[in-house]
């Protein structure tokens, strides 16, 4: 076994009211991929931020190549040879893609930034991930998945000894995950130490050599991946023995309920955004939206929820012709929508878990009928319990929650409004296995209660597991609609990949 390049001993980190890390040891060895696992809020991201100096540690030592380091900012860590991709995209949305990759280490010529070199380098870094984009476009115009890849490209662009990736794959589709893993394998072969955080067990086993499990800020243990069966890993993470997760009840088996659909649109689209399409969803049904990155799933969801306005087509809700002009109108129709970019489109960072949770319900009740405090507290307590949200209390600011727990609060925000239709754009992004199973169970329950769901996910297996029907989008147009027996991973994949020869959409 090679010596650790990165060696952390007895790391402790406390926040006001919580001990996020409690005496954790962690090693990363050259030529190995080391997976860091744990439930939402276990302390993975915190450990990484301590290692890179984004947080000051309270106790413990960190050594790189035997030398103790005490990085006071992430720049120090980078100088010591640690390159990092943080959870949630942490880049500069207003600057161009090229610049985001080059920022802080721009090549100079005559004391000035050599822009051509910056762009070339960015293109090369992206090419390593199999990505070609216009590097001059502002980052904010890229989808969240592309942003995630840009962040990875930025980290790859430094010659580091340790590469840390905190949930780099949460919004990537399979092809991109494949590209990324190929790069990681190459780096591993070159002798780099790689730390990977992800909630996808398949991915963990596909690539890691070693697994460290954290639970509630404590170290559970370090294992060789080959010696750790899946089930055991999960039970280490959860701290209790468990049955195989997720409970794969195939949703497609049940028949779509009869009667008029809850929501039906016809010739529905918007110029330059979405080619007109038909779509319907019944109460008690999950409609999956499949497609590659940028295929237009998010656009469709935004149009359906009234964030953007369609410029053609008609919409019927429960058989009545309706026009949705704003999210507020959708809310009154008892629709709900969790956007994929929760950081900028959903979170109210400094407000408490309670306030984040009841805000949609409050909007539905209107300005004057304030949700009584007792009801707020009771709702919050109920959802914290039901979804297993880890927070120091209902009054904790949501920005201090771990990523996965934030996502659960945002889901609870809509569930609290008792919606008829819920549009979920990548809801499982960053949610741990346990919670993912809980979520899937929840979806099934909601569906049983007569809720209609539109479910967007880049993970096809998840989509297939949970949907009765799947609509496949490509290049901002509907290319296929699969129902019943067609809801199969292979069929979906083929529909996504098929060039031109897709069956004509029926609907």
């Amino acid at each position: 076994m090679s010596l650790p390049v990165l060696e952390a001993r007895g790391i402790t980190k406390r926040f006001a009211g919580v001990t996020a890390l409690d005496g954790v040891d962690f090693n990363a060895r050259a030529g190995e991929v080391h997976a860091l696992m744990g439930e939402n809020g276990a302390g993975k991201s915190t450990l990484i931020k301590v290692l890179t100096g984004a947080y000051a540690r309270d106790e413990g030592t960190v050594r790189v190549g035997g030398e103790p380091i005490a990085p006071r900012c992430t720049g120090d860590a980078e100088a010591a040879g640690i390159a990092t991709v943080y959870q949630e995209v942490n880049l500069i949305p207003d600057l161009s893609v090229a610049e985001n990759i080059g920022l802080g280490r721009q090549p100079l010529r005559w004391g000035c930034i050599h822009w051509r070199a910056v762009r070339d380098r960015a293109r090369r870094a992206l090419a390593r991930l199999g990505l070609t984009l216009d590097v001059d476009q502002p980052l904010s115009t890229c989808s969240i998945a592309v942003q995630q890849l840009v962040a990875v490209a930025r980290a790859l662009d430094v010659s580091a000894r340790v590469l840390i990736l905190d949930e780099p794959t949460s919004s990537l589709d399979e092809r991109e995950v494949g590209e990324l893993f190929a790069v990681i394998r190459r780096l591993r072969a070159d002798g780099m130490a790689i730390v990977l955080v992800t909630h996808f067990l398949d991915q963990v086993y596909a690539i890691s050599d070693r697994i460290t499990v954290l639970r509630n800020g404590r170290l559970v243990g370090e294992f060789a991946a080959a010696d750790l069966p899946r089930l055991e890993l999960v039970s280490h993470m959860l701290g209790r023995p468990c049955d195989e997760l997720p409970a794969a009840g195939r949703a497609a088996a049940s028949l779509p309920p009869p009667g008029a659909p809850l929501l039906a649109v016809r010739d529905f689209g918007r110029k330059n955004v979405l080619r007109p399409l038909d779509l319907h969803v019944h109460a008690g049904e999950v409609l999956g939206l499949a497609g590659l990155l940028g295929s237009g799933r998010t656009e469709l969801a935004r149009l359906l929820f009234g964030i953007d306005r369609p410029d053609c087509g008609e919409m019927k809700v429960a058989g009545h012709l309706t026009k949705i002009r704003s999210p507020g109108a959708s809310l009154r129709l008892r629709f709900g929508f969790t956007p994929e970019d929760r950081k900028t489109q959903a979170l109210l960072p400094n407000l408490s878990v309670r306030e984040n949770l009841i805000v949609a319900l409050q909007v539905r009740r209107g300005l004057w009928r304030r949700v009584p405090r007792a009801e707020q507290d009771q709702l919050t307590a109920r959802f914290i319990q039901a979804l297993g949200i880890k927070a120091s209390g209902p009054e904790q600011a949501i920005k201090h929650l771990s990523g996965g727990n934030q996502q659960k609060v945002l889901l609870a925000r809509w569930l609290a409004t008792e919606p008829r239709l819920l549009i979920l754009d990548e809801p499982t992004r960053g949610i741990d296995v346990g919670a993912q199973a809980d979520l899937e169970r929840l979806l099934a329950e909601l569906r049983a209660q007569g809720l209609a769901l539109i479910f967007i996910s880049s993970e096809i297996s998840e989509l297939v597991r949970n949907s009765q029907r799947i609509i496949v989008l490509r290049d901002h147009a509907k290319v296929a609609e699969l129902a019943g027996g067609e809801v199969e991973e292979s069929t979906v994949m083929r529909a996504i990949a098929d060039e031109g020869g897709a069956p004509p959409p029926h609907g």
Partner: protein
Amino acid sequence: MKARLPQQQIPVAASLAVLLLLYGGGCALFPHFGSLRVLINLFGDNAFLGIAAVGTTFVILSGGIDLSVGSVVAFTGILVARLVAQGVAPPAALAIALLLGALFGGLMGLLIQAFDLPPFLVTLGGMFLARGLGFMVHAESIAITHPFYDGFIAQTLAIRVSSRLSIPFTAVCLVAVVAGATALARWTPFGRNVYALGSNEASARLMGLPVARTKVGVYALAGFLSALGGCVATFYMQSGNPASFVGLELDAIAAAVIGGTILRGGVGFIPGTLVGVLILGLIQTLITFQGDLNTWWTRIIIGALLFLFILLQEMISRFARRS
């Protein structure tokens, strides 16, 4: 391949279009409006505002705000005047003033950075402080009479156009500062870090950028440019007055915003600020050429024109974005 961020340049282009439109309108309406002298005046008269506004633009780009501009300009003026009156050589006096300006700005930046204080309040404190210090330097205005000013700056450095008309040195300073600042913002790591800081400070920190240094640097730069604006104002008026330039900071902010800089930071273009300054100056010129407005109508018309400008800019931007 050329660099282009078309979406973000639209407001600047819109402002420029509005500026040209208004200038054309003025020429059509009033005799003499199109004369070269008016154009030169436009640059020369607004030089100190323009230079200070460039500093403000940097601060806004970094996600902050600087309210101390007017006071620092006034303070610099009275300091230089006092020093010159006491026999200090003008170049030395100017250098001292510039240094103090940078120091003053840097100090505010340090407070903002080290204690995470709101820039609005700290620079507001700076505004009061500099104003009071100006009165402490000398409570009344002082004229500067020195051959360096009368001869060198006013005569030698001015560019003669004809026997009766010359481009004042102040205008030259303005153009030079805008050019230099544009380069600084576009071509240096410092400049890019300012954008990054303003766009998302937390990300900038995680990306390992020197956030603290950049933040302090930005306020120091703004202080320096305010002081430079003050120096240019002394060229312009050959005097210093501690009570002058009240509210200049608002004009500077308005110029930056009209020029396309977004107040929450991270987006903006330095030449846009020049356009903003020229627009403000043009509004004033139009009003003097109109020549029959009393105080209140002057105010109302300035407000109305400002509104019109912003509305037009919005409309042009939206239209350009759609097509």
